[in-house]
């Protein structure tokens, strides 16, 4: 799992000393999840959320492969080949956990029984569209459970770096990559800022220390604003 948890997030070139790490961002996101919610954590960085969440919280984490009640990552000595998350990393389960088979797991998703799904993305548009399964030119397309989650659960939050490895903003006016779903994203948690998707585009909910809205806007090719401003 270390390769997923130790990725350094992209930085805004030459401006901010450092954004949130994946673990810091996961903890920040977890703070916004209500007790009692059942939350799907998708492949990649979102799987870290179950590892950093305060164990006194009663949030029920769902993994698409039939686990309701995902706990922290498993220590090397406690790994079970049949206890893995969406990223195929070894995990534990919490007291009160349940297993279901795959079709039931996706019936929970499609039937609207999950309160939230947290997924990664390549692009998020200001109309709530997002793309996270196939970049044009990719050798092998792979969709996994993303489209089922995007259309089935009550809320979709994206957890990602704000900029890709080439320094290009993942927030955009309209997605140029093949869509995962239309108009479903409600919030975007990134290393540098947290955004809400409103009917009038992206609203900035939080900026990391030392970063101004004006500075960020210079690097993001879509209008971002504070609530109440135009």
């Amino acid at each position, binding site marked *: 799992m270390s390769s997923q948890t130790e990725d350094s997030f992209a930085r805004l070139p030459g401006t901010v000393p450092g954004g949130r790490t994946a673990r810091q961002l996961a903890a920040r996101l977890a703070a916004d999840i209500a007790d009692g919610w059942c939350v799907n954590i998708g492949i990649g960085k979102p799987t870290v959320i179950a590892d950093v969440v305060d164990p006194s919280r009663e949030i029920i984490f769902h993994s698409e492969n039939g686990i309701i009640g995902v706990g922290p990552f498993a220590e090397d000595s406690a790994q079970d080949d049949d206890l893995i998350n969406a990223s195929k990393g070894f995990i534990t389960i919490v007291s009160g956990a349940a297993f279901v088979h*795959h079709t039931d797991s996706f019936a929970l998703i499609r039937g609207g029984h999950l309160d939230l799904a947290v997924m990664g993305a390549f692009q998020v548009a200001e109309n709530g569209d997002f793309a996270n399964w196939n970049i044009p030119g990719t050798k092998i397309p792979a969709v996994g*459970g993303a*489209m089922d989650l995007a259309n089935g659960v009550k809320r979709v939050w994206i957890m990602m770096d704000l900029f890709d490895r080439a320094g290009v903003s993942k927030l955009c006016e309209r997605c140029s990559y093949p869509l995962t779903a239309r108009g479903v994203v409600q919030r975007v948690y990134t290393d540098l800022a947290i955004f809400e998707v409103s009917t009038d585009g992206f609203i900035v909910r939080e900026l990391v220390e030392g970063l101004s809205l004006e500075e960020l806007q210079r690097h993001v090719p879509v209008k971002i604003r504070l609530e109440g401003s135009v």
Partner: protein
Amino acid sequence: MIEKQVPNLADAIDGIRSGATILVSGFGEAGSPVELLEALLDTDVKELTIVANNAGSGNRGLASLLREGRVRKIICSYPRSKGSVWFERRYLANEVALEVVPQGTLSERIRAAGAGIGGFFTTTGIGTDLAAGKETRMIEGREYLLEMPLFGDVALIKAQRADRWGNLVYHAAGRNYGPTMAAAAALTVAQVNEIVPLGSIDPETVVTPGILVDRVIKITAAKT
């Protein structure tokens, strides 16, 4: 007397023919019937269509069938896994065809096949490239896609425990596609870690009833 236990892997896979569509359980390696898949290498079956969540990784199980050129097509949700070296090699050389299906749709299409459902409408995939060519319908104000059942000639699955009637109990998330696939194929073969006397599995805990399982093989050698 009903006796589904077979004595060896050759008997377990007997009758599987070239060109068959095989449903293969597993999410990554969890719940994957590695030994049954590898037993196919001792036969001459080829031109297989594989239905699975992933496209194999490393060198074992599904990956070994790809390595040996036995697979014609893979229908799966997530072929781009770490270590899917043999799939990647065969696919990029145009030696294997790929159909990517959203994971819940894949699972539900298999369920439909096993449950006598002639298709179903889902919102999954609406507005995406994967909706191309599919019938849509407005239901209760939302747009849905028609998805069709996906049958197997054979299902190869893995469970933890069985009795001679083929009742199955799984281990943790190794359960994944097993119960759904068991119902959707003409021939269902389960590899298990343990076979227990009839009556010793509590009926309240049976996950897959034996009427869906044709053969059971106990795997003794540990996976390496």
